C-alpha cells in the first residue's frame, strides 16, 4: 500500500476538510490536557497533601465535591484546564457524531437538521459546562 502523498494545498478547503483538521487538532489538545492534568494533579497532590483522585474528581465535578486545593491560583488553573478540556471534547465530538449521522441520514434536509441540532447542542452544553465549572 502506497503512502498518501497529496499535499494539503491540493486537497481543497471545504467544511469537511476544515472539520477533519479541527478534529485532529482537538484530539491533540485533549491528549495534551490529559497529560498536563495528570502531571499537574500529581504536583498539586505533592504540594498540598491532597489525594490525586480527589483533585481529579473535584476538577470534573466541582458542584458535588469539596475543593481539596488550598490556594486560589491552583483552583483557577484547574478550572481553566477542565473548561478547556470540555470545550475541546465537545468540538471533537460534534464532528464525530455528525459523521455517524451522515451515514444514516441520506436526505439533504435531514442532514441539515442533524447538523443544526448537533452544533446547537454542542454550543449549549459547552456554555452550561463552562458556567457551572467556573462558578462552583
Amino acid at each position, binding site marked *: *500500500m502506497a503512502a498518501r502523498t497529496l499535499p494539503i494545498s491540493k486537497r481543497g478547503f471545504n467544511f469537511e476538510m476544515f472539520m477533519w483538521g479541527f478534529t*485532529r487538532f482537538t484530539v491533540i489538545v485533549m491528549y495534551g490536557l490529559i497529560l498536563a492534568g495528570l502531571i499537574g494533579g500529581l504536583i498539586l497532590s505533592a504540594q498540598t497533601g491532597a489525594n490525586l483522585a480527589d483533585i481529579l474528581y473535584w476538577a470534573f465535578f466541582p458542584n458535588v465535591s469539596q475543593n481539596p486545593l488550598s490556594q486560589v491560583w491552583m483552583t483557577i488553573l484547574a478550572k481553566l484546564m477542565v473548561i478547556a478540556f470540555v470545550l475541546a471534547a*465537545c468540538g471533537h*465530538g460534534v464532528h464525530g457524531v455528525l459523521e455517524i449521522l451522515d451515514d444514516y441520514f441520506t436526505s439533504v434536509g435531514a442532514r441539515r437538521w442533524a447538523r443544526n441540532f448537533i452544533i446547537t447542542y454542542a454550543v449549549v*452544553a459547552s456554555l*452550561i459546562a463552562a458556567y457551572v465549572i467556573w462558578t462552583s
Partner: protein
Amino acid sequence: MGLKRNVSLATALRYKGQGPMLAFILHRIGGSALFIFFTLYILSLLGMSFANTIFSNWVFQIILLVFGLFHAINGLRITILDLFPKLIENYRNAISIEWVVYILVVGFALFVVLRNTLGG
C-alpha cells in the same frame, strides 16, 4: 451514501475488513458511548442526581471504560498515522500494537472497577 448496503456485520468483518473494520466499528461505538457520557456529565453539572447515580453504577463504568478507552487508544493510532503518512504502510502492525496497549490498559481499569465493586 445509500442505506441499502446489503452487507452484514459478519460479512464485513470476514471479508477485507477484518481488523481495521473491527477497529472502525468499535471506534464508532466508543464515540457514541462517550457522547452518552458527555450528556450525562452535563446533566450532572446541572445538579441532576440521577446522572451521578448512573456514573457510580459499576456496569455503566465497565461499558464506558471498555468502549471509551478503545476510542481513545484507536484515536491516538489514527492521529499518529494521519500526521505521519509514511507509517500508513504499517497500519496493520499499528493496529496490533494498539490492541496490546488496549488490553493492558483496559485490563487494569476493569481490575480496579471490579475490585472496588467486590469490596477488595
